[in-house]
Each structure stands twice: as structure tokens, then as C-alpha cells.
């Protein structure tokens, strides 16, 4: 029964991710006074891409062909470890946050290899940028995670959420800093606006799009879907760790329905915040991303320090 729940939750993750990005697009359009596409437009795009025949460039090796599946599979596995609507699922016993970061790294490594595999200038450029950014973002993320782990005495997500639920409302300075750091990292890792622009294929500053420029058809669909799932993953991570109230602790129908409704609401609010920040800020120069990420790292380090200094037991 519990395993069934875990599988169901992962499937929900996969199914709802395009809806979230459709919602973000819609809010952004409304804010920019444009006419918004339908909420289900990402599903239609994926279906259209899936029907088309993928085209393989001549110099491509097996890495190019395998990468979309590996990227998609590692993102789905990462989604399986994050509690969406319920905690105490059996998947929580298998994997903790560090495994989650590892899944992200695996997917990213193959995406980067695939970008370089074809040998075009754009692919190599995008890959090198992606690695630069992720090598700066990952320490910041791990530092934020360790800050949480020090308070909760576990790196297991399910237990950490349970800890926050048990202690109730506590204004921990370390959590505030970790929240800030994690939000900045999430924006950088999912390629949203101050770092990368997800809406363009035609810019010299693009990062994610530069790597997947050679992909077409169902492989492109898989990669796009994976990046939508990744965006949702970060949203759920932020919502459930810092504001876990409402998540289901038992597997009754009422609790699960409530958990699902609450997480939908939280994600919708987070998406509105993301859209507003994307409208307000311009994309920054690629050489300033390093400053941005070192600020994220500073926030995480301050979180760790304030846990030790300010939250010491008296």
C-alpha cells in the first residue's frame, strides 16, 4: 500500500510538472499585459514534439542518443525521493537529500556530455557555462541542506519535514538564511531569469538552451519535460521543508486530499512569486552570475553560522 502511494506520488510529479510551468507562463503573460496561452499548452507542446521524428546529427555518438533517457530517468528518480503530498513513504528510507543532489548531478553530467558530443560551438559553450554555474551552485545548495540537517539531526527529507511539523512555528534564523540561499540556487539551477532565460533560443547568453540545441522530436520532449519536473522539484522542496503544514502524515483519504490541495496552493503561490521576480529583474551578464551565486553561498554559510551562534542551547 505504501509503495503504491510512493509510485502514485512520483507519477503525480511527472504529470503535474507541465501544468506548473503552464501556470508560471500564464501569470507572467498576465503581468506583462500579454494574452496568455492555455494552462495546458505545455502538454500540447510535449505531445507535438513526441510525435515528430528526432533527427540525429552525423557526428553524434551513443551519448547523444542515451542522454535524454538518462536525464529523464534521473529526474524521475529524484522526484521519487521528495515528499509531495505525504511523508513516511517507503522511498524516504532509501534516499536522502545528498542522493537527491547526486541524481541532479548525474542528469546534468549527461546533458553536458551530450551538449559537447556533437561538436558544435553552441553546445560546448552551453556545457562549459552549465558546469561553471553548477559548480558554484552545488556547494551553496549543500550548505543550505546541511544547515537544515543540523537543526533536524537528519539528512532524510521525510524526517526533516516531520521535525519541522513537530516543533511547530519556530523563528529559526538559520532557516530564514537557508530559505534565501535555496531560493537563489533554485533559480540558478532551473535556469530562470536572472541567470538564464528559458524563453529564448536565439541569444548568445543562453545556457540550458545552448546545450540542447541539436535535439529534436521526442528526445527534446523528454529533456523539456525533465526540466519542468526539476522546476517543480525545487518548488516542492522549498514549500515542504520550510512550510510543511498540511502535508499528510497518515494515508487516509482525507489527509491525502488535504495534502494534495495544500501543496497545489503552495506551488501556485511560489510560482506567482517566481513570475513576479522574472518580470521585475533583467537577465544579468554571465560574468555576474558568479557574484549572484557567491551571495547564495554566503547566505547558506550565514545560516550555518547563525545555527551555531544564535540557536545554541542555553
Amino acid at each position: 500500500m505504501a509503495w503504491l502511494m510512493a509510485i502514485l506520488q512520483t507519477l503525480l510529479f511527472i504529470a503535474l510538472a507541465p501544468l506548473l510551468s503552464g501556470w508560471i507562463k500564464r501569470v507572467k503573460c498576465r503581468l506583462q499585459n500579454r494574452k496568455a496561452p492555455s494552462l495546458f499548452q505545455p502538454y500540447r507542446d510535449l505531445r507535438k514534439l513526441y510525435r515528430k521524428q528526432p533527427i540525429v546529427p552525423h557526428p553524434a555518438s551513443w551519448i547523444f542518443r542515451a542522454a535524454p533517457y538518462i536525464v529523464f530517468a534521473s529526474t524521475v528518480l529524484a522526484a521519487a525521493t521528495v515528499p509531495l503530498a505525504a511523508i513516511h513513504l517507503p522511498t524516504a528510507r532509501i534516499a536522502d537529500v545528498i542522493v537527491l543532489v547526486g541524481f541532479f548531478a548525474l542528469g546534468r553530467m549527461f546533458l553536458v556530455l551530450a551538449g559537447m558530443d556533437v561538436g558544435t560551438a553552441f553546445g560546448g559553450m552551453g556545457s562549459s557555462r552549465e558546469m561553471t554555474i553548477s559548480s558554484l551552485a552545488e556547494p551553496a545548495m549543500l550548505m543550505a541542506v546541511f544547515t537544515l540537517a543540523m537543526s533536524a539531526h537528519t539528512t532524510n527529507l521525510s524526517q526533516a519535514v516531520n521535525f519541522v511539523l513537530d516543533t511547530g512555528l519556530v523563528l529559526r534564523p538559520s532557516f530564514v538564511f537557508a530559505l534565501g540561499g535555496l531560493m537563489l540556487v533554485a533559480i540558478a539551477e532551473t535556469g530562470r531569469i536572472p541567470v538564464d532565460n528559458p524563453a529564448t533560443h536565439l541569444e548568445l547568453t543562453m545556457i540550458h538552451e545552448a546545450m540542447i540545441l541539436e535535439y529534436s522530436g521526442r528526445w527534446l520532449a523528454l529533456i523539456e519535460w525533465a526540466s519542468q519536473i526539476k522546476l517543480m522539484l525545487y518548488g516542492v522542496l522549498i514549500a515542504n521543508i520550510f512550510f510543511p503544514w498540511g502535508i499528510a502524515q497518515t494515508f487516509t483519504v482525507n489527509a491525502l486530499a488535504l495534502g494534495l490541495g495544500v501543496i497545489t496552493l503552495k506551488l501556485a503561490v511560489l510560482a506567482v512569486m517566481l513570475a513576479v521576480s522574472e518580470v521585475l529583474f533583467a537577465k544579468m551578464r554571465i560574468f555576474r552570475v558568479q557574484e549572484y551565486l557567491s551571495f547564495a553561498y554566503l547566505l547558506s554559510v550565514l545560516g550555518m553560522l547563525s545555527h551555531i551562534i544564535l540557536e545554541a542551547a542555553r
Partner: protein
Amino acid sequence: MDFAELSLYSQAVLLLAGLIALTSFLMLGQSRLVRLVLVFAIQGILLAATTAMVAGVLDFPHLYISAGLSFLLKGILIPVMLHRMIYRLGLHRELDTIEHPARVMMGGAFLVVFSYYVSLPVVAHSPLVTLNAIAVSLAVVLLGMLLMITRRQAVAHVVGFMSIENGLFFAAVVSTYGMPMVVELGVAADVLVAAVVFGVFFFQIRESIDSLDVDRLSKLTEVDKP
């Protein structure tokens, strides 16, 4: 006592302490003078909020006066004065380049750890809950000094000096719940006078070396030697 068992007010005071440390770091990394002054104003307002909260928790009405005073002086009056001065000196577009920003930041983090280490024995001998923040106040003082060391612009030096004063005031609030009223009023007046005197000094420095770059004060000749 565990952190989660403290009252929400004490937790909020400690949270504000963390935010004050954050503003100190922001000042350290801010190369534009106008924004530097803005962050300084935010620090002053956070300080006033902390003082008011301590006053509310402990029912010390005289702390409300010092909270209001620091809000007016450090949150509004001195930042506005500095802001005007920056515009009048034509420095609002100038970038005060920070050499090795990453190293400065790491140094700042090290200073926080150092002040934690120094204040450990003090914290161990007192039952006050908010005393955990004394390490933060010491760190704010040291970060203000670091700001003064790493900058060239005289205005940035003044902001660093004022933020040192912020750190001392914060230490007084969290460790002894405020200084005697006379001392506090005296310090507030001193800070105000200092701001005015610094303003006069800016014009003096600029008249004599035609710039506010303090590094040029140590040169004896007008032209650089080859």
C-alpha cells in the same frame, strides 16, 4: 534551554540579530555608495526594531525612547545626510571598486567565527537568553572595521564607522538591555555631531586633493613616479 522552547519574542530578537549581520555583509559587498548608504539605513531600522522588541519583552519603557532615537538618527537622518552629501560631491555614479571581493567575504565569515570564539566565555556565565547575539554584535563591529580597511572612498569609511557604532549599541541592547539614558543620549548626540563634522571633512579633503580617494592622502607628490 533549547532554541525551540524560547518565547517567540526572543526568537524574533535573535532572527533580527541574524538579519543585522546580513546587512553588515551586504555593506561589505556593495560597491555603489548610494546603495551602501541604503543598506546602512536598513541596518539602522533593524536595530531600532530589535530595541523596540526587547523593550516590549522586558517592559523597559526607556528602551522605547532609544529605539525611536536610533530609528530617527540611524534609520533616517544620517542616511539622508550622507545621501545628499554623495549627490553634492557628485559621487553617486562612481564605483568604489573592491579588490578581491571573494577574499573580503571569506575574511568577513572568518571574523564572525572569531567573534563567536571570543564571546563564548562571556555567554557561558550569563543566564540572559538574548546573549547569544553578543557574538553577532561583536562581528558587526569587526565587519565595520573590515569595511573601513577595504575601501578607498572617504564616504564608505564614514559608513563603516557608523556601523561600528551600530554594533556597539546592539551589544548594549542584547547584553545589558540598554545603557543608562544619559549615556545613550550622549552617544546619539555624538554620532549626529560626527556626521556633521565628517561632512565638513569631505569638502576639506576634496579641496586639498581634489578627490575623496583616501589612498592619495599618503602620497607626497602630485604626480605618480614612474
